[in-house]
């Protein structure tokens, strides 16, 4: 019987099956940020267990609220900073070098096909784009990960999701994943891995695959995962060129992780996305999704472009296509938060930042900030945001505020008009 990619990763990282259908996995990368890690650090200290299993396998960033906005967030940052120094963690990213974790860590080449990755953050599923098993965990799992380098998971079943056809102009990975979540519901992939296949995924860049995998959790999925291929190898090449003779050799090697043709899935779904149009959420759950034309005219107070879902260079390029030479509506506050310093400087080089600023956007430093209603764009009750983030939970971006999730292309169109509109009707 064939195996799925997840089963292959579980097999190679198996540290024992304590009981039930749980497997304890060796973890290759434990990632930490300042919101969920400080309590773990304090608890380890209290228990006299203030150590780490391997400082090289721990990656640390201050990203959720940075620069710190008040004494409490400054304390969280300090706990993390002091700990990273004390434990000799080299890969620690502070102000000036920090960015949104799920955009920053892939960019640094920390994720490889076949890896096991955990973080105290639900969108850790993003890293499945590289053919890794990457899952969000709570603080206790994180604590054990930091201390012992292991984490326990129930053997997850995998769903095979095949995307066929070709994406139309103006339709992106974000639209695809919103559509899939609508079909699966917020509970449809719970305890499952969403394995993405098909020509649409093959044609996607790593950035787009990350957008796809990022929102697996919004369908309840343990992780999203893509087969590592030439696109993966080319993205990782600067980091792996010492290990392989050529990109092709890396591609060949990555195939060992691919799901076997006779692997067993809990379900197999095929979506032809050729007729897909831009999507948007209308409610307060990520499966409450409509065609954007059905929301035409819904006015917005703020447009937010950024986050681990859509704050990468391609996202900025798509939004800039719409914004170039235009002004955003006077009723709208436009906020761009490039996800990492690299994205930021590349966007400057390409002239994208100038386009955003000329259009009337405020550009913030790389941070999560507004995405979780912490800083840099928190909204007032009754306000509405067109957002490229991943969660439209009621009040997430500020108590009593409403969020409509969409692609950067659609968000930019909403900024120009002051209301939600089909972005394809704006001549880009």
């Amino acid at each position, binding site marked *: 019987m064939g195996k799925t990619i997840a089963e292959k990763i579980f097999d190679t990282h198996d540290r024992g099956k304590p009981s039930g*259908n749980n497997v304890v996995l060796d973890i290759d990368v434990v990632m930490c940020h300042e919101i969920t890690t400080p309590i773990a650090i304090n*608890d380890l200290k209290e228990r006299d267990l203030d150590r780490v299993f391997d400082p090289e396998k721990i990656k640390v960033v201050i990203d959720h609220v940075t620069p710190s906005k008040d004494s409490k967030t400054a304390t969280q940052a300090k706990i993390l900073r002091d700990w990273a120094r004390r434990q000799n963690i080299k890969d620690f990213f502070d102000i000036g070098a920090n960015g949104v974790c799920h955009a920053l860590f892939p960019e640094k080449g920390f994720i490889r096909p076949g890896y096991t990755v955990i973080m105290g953050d639900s969108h850790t599923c993003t890293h499945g784009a590289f053919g890794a098993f990457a899952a969000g965990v709570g603080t206790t799992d994180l604590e*054990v990960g930091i201390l012992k380098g292991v984490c*326990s998971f129930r053997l997850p079943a995998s769903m095979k999701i095949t995307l066929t056809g070709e994406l139309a102009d103006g339709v992106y990975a974000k639209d695809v994943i919103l559509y899939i979540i609508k079909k699966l519901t917020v509970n449809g992939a719970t305890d499952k891995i969403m394995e993405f296949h098909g020509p649409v995924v093959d044609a996607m860049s790593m950035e787009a695959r990350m957008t796809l995998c990022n929102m697996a959790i919004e369908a309840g999925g343990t992780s999203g995962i893509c087969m590592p291929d030439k696109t993966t190898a080319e993205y990782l090449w600067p980091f792996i060129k010492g290990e392989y003779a050529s990109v092709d050799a890396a591609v060949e090697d990555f195939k060992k992780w691919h799901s076997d043709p006779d692997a067993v899935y809990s379900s197999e779904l095929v979506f032809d996305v050729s007729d897909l149009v831009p999507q948007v959420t209308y409610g307060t759950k990520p499966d409450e999704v409509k065609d954007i034309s059905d929301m035409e005219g819904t006015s917005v107070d703020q447009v937010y472009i950024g986050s681990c879902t859509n704050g990468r260079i391609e996202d900025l390029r798509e939004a800039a296509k719409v914004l170039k030479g235009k002004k955003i509506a006077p009723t709208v506050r436009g906020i761009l938060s490039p996800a990492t310093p690299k994205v930021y400087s590349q966007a400057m080089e390409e002239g994208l930042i100038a386009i955003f600023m000329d259009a009337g956007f405020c550009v913030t430093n790389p941070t999560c900030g507004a995405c979780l209603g912490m800083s840099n764009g928190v909204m007032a009750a009754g306000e509405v945001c067109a957002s490229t983030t991943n969660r439209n939970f009621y009040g997430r971006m500020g108590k009593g505020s409403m969020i409509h999730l969409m692609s950067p292309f659609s968000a930019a169109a909403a900024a120009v008009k002051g209301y939600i509109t089909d972005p394809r009707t704006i001549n880009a």
Partner: protein
Amino acid sequence: MKTFGGQALFLDRNDINTDEIIPAKYLTENSKLALKPYVLEDLKLPGFNVQEDIARANVVVTRANFGCGSSREHAVWVFEVNNINTVIGESFARIFRQNMFNCGMLAIELSKEDIDTLFQLGGDVIFSIDVENETLTAKGNKEVSFSFSLNSFDKDLLVAGGWLAYADQKF
């Protein structure tokens, strides 16, 4: 092992997310106890008054996909510091369920029919829960008993008092 059971609090909705259980803006607290007043602050349910309803509660009874969204273990801690020891639902988001057992707390899955029965009991409902034998009794205007099943690993975590204690012994 903790003791499980007590007074019920009914939250009649699917997909209650961890932002509703504890909003992100309180995640800047560095102690579990500091979270206490903010429990379920953003949950909007007809007839639900957080401060009044939470005060006597020990067991939350809810519907499907409870605890979806963010991985924040704060959602479990805020229950813990409010004397809630058990959540009973049709299903849970994976991370939330794991966080419960990791903290030595109990998450019980029952069928939709059984959950419906609990919601219809009426009166002040009190739970007695026997983890060893995987049975529970709920006494309101009527009394009902159900059996449930626990993953044996999760049961081991309850006995050990959580994942850290367990992992520290074995790995």
